[in-house]
C-alpha cells in the first residue's frame, strides 16, 4: 500500500508534525527541533518506500529502519502510529511513567521499532549488522538508517561506514538529516563539516544530495539509491531544524525544549493552515 500522491504524502508529513508538537507539549519534554526536521524523510520512507506491513511488524523479509538519532522519537512514534502500528491515542502518553513510548525508542516496547537507540553513534553499526545478516540469508531486505549531522562527531559512525563499504552493502541506505544544528551550536562551529559529502564519498559511499523537505526530491533520492549496486548509499538531506513551525525554525533553543500553552497553540495554528 504505497502512497504515491505527493499531496497525500505532504498531508501525512504535516499531520506527523502536529503529532510531534502535541507529544512534546503533553509530555512537557522531548526534542521538537530534530523531530520536525526529519518528518518528511520518515513520511517518504514509511508511506512510499519501505516494504513493511504494520499488521506484521516482525515479518522476516521486511525492510528495516534504525533511528540512530533516537532523541527524535516523537517523529518516529507519530509515523508509526499514522502508519497503523499502534493506536494514535498512545502518543499522548509519550515520556510518561508507565508508557511504552519511552524518551528514546525501545524495540521491545513499541511495534515497528526495529532497534533500540538513544546513545548517539550506535545505530549505524546496528544497521550494518542488519544489512550483513540480510545478505548472508539472501533475505532481500533494505535497511535504512537515519543519522543526525551532529551525530557524525561520533567516531563509531566512521567505523561503521568503513565496514559498510568494505562489505559492499548496497542494501544499506543511510539518511543524514542535515539541519546544520546540534545541541550547543551549529555543526560547523564544532567540527569542520564543509565536506560531509566528500567524507562519505572517500569512505566508499554512493552520495546523493537532496532537499529533505521536498517529497519528490526524497522519492527520487531513495529510488536512485535502490539502483546503485556494490556500495552503500548515503542521502544527505538538506533540512531545517524545527521545520514547519516558524518560531522553531533554525533555533538551537528548540533542540530539546517543550512549548508552553501559547507556543503550542501558535504552532498548531501554523500547522493547520
Amino acid at each position, binding site marked *: 500500500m504505497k502512497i504515491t500522491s505527493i499531496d497525500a504524502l505532504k498531508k501525512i508529513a504535516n499531520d506527523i508534525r502536529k503529532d510531534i508538537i502535541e507529544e512534546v507539549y503533553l509530555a512537557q519534554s522531548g526534542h521538537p527541533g530534530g523531530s520536525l526536521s526529519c518528518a518528511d524523510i520518515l513520511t517518504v520512507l514509511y508511506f512510499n518506500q519501505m516494504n513493511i506491513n504494520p499488521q506484521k511488524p516482525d515479518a522476516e523479509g521486511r525492510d*528495516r529502519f534504525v533511528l540512530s538519532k533516537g532523541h527524535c522519537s516523537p517523529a518516529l512514534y507519530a509515523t508509526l502510529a499514522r502508519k497503523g502500528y499502534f493506536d494514535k491515542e498512545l502518543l499522548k502518553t509519550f515520556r510518561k511513567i508507565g508508557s511504552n513510548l519511552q524518551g528514546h525508542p525501545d524495540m521491545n516496547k513499541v511495534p515497528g521499532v526495529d532497534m*533500540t*537507540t538513544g546513545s548517539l553513534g550506535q545505530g549505524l553499526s*546496528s544497521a550494518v549488522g542488519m544489512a550483513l545478516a540480510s545478505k548472508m540469508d539472501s533475505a532481500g531486505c533494505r535497511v535504512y538508517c537515519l543519522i543526525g549531522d551532529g551525530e557524525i562527531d561520533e567516531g563509531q559512525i566512521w567505523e561503521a561506514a568503513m565496514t559498510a563499504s568494505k562489505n559492499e552493502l548496497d542494501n544499506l541506505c543511510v539518511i543524514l538529516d542535515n539541519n546544520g544544528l546540534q545541541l550547543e551550536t551549529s555543526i560547523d562551529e564544532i567540527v569542520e563539516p564543509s565536506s560531509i559529502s566528500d567524507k562519505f564519498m572517500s569512505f566508499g559511499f554512493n552520495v546523493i544530495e537532496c532537499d529533505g523537505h521536498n517529497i519528490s526530491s526524497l522519492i527520487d533520492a531513495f529510488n536512485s539509491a535502490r539502483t546503485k549496486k556494490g556500495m552503500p548509499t548515503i542521502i544527505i538531506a538538506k533540512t531545517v531544524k524545527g521545520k514547519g513551525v516558524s518560531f522553531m525554525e533554525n533555533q538551537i533553543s528548540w533542540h530539546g525544549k517543550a512549548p508552553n500553552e501559547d507556543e503550542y497553540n501558535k504552532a498548531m495554528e501554523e500547522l493547520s493552515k
Partner: protein
Amino acid sequence: MREEKIATRQSFGEALEKLGEENKNVVVIDADLAKSTKTSLFAKKFPDRFIDVGIAEQNMIGIADGLSTFGKVPFVSTFAAFATGRVYDQIRCSVAYPKLNVKICGTHAGVTVGEDGATHQMLEDINLMRGLPNMTVISTSDDVQTKWAVEEISKIDGPVYLRLARIATPVIYEENQKFEIGKGVQIGNGTDATIFATGVTVSEALKAQELLKERGFDVRVVDIHTIKPIDRELIVKCAKETDKIITVEDHSIIGGLGTAVCEVLAEEYPTKVIRLGIPDCFGKSGKAADLMKYFRIDAQAICQLVVNGDGEN
C-alpha cells in the same frame, strides 16, 4: 585435576568451531585479534560467517546487535579490556537494554595476561558486566567447563559475557562433568574453610586444597563459574557449614566474585569474608605466575591464609 594444561581461550576457539558446525546461525566477529582469541579456528572453517571488523570494537558490538535481530547468534571476541571497558556504553544501550542475543567473549582477562601490563590486564570486567540488567556473566576455569559454556550460552536467548584467560591452566574436570548455569561446583566437603574461586584461580584453590590436606586442614573449593546469576543457595550453605569463607579471583576485589559473595552473605547469613584478588590498583608487567604470587591469588597465598588467618581473627 590433570597434569594437562589448556588455556580457556583455546578451548573457546575449539568449542566455537564445533558450534559452528551444529548451529548455522552462529556468526563470529573479531577485532583484529583472531589469532590470539582463537576465533581464527572458526574463521578458517566458516569464512562466510566470520567478520573481522578491524580495530573497531564499538562497531563490532553494534554489528552484533544488528545481526542478532535477524536471528543470528553472534559471538564477538577480543581481549576482555576492549570487549567490555572500551565498549561499555555500546553493550549497555544496544545489547543489555534491548536484551539482544549477543555473546561477548573477553579473552586475556586479569593480571595473568602477564607482560602486556595494566592497559591489557582487565580487572574490572566482571564488575562492569555484572552491573548490567539482563546480562549473564560466566567465568570458566578449565577446558571442559569452557567447552560446555560455549555450547550452553548459545542456547540462552539473551546477552552473555564469557570471561576467558590467556594462560594455560590445568584441566580440572572429567569429560562427563555436568554443569548448570547459575550453579557452583563444590569440590570436597571440608569444613575448615570454603574457598570460592572463579576462572584461573580455581586450579590454584585446588592446589591449595591438596597442600592444606598435608598440613591437616580440610577445606572445600567452590568453582563459581556463573557470577551472575550467582548461586545464593550454595554460598549460604557453605557459610553455614564451614569455619572460614575466602574468595579468590584474578579481578579487582571491587565488584567481582568477592563482592558478589559478600552481597549474598550480608543479606542472608552475615559472615566474615576474606577476599583475595587485586586490591584497588592497576596491574603491572611480569610473568603470569609471578604476578599471581605478587598479588596473592595463588595456591600459596590461599594456604597461608587458611593456616595463619588474616591476623584479625
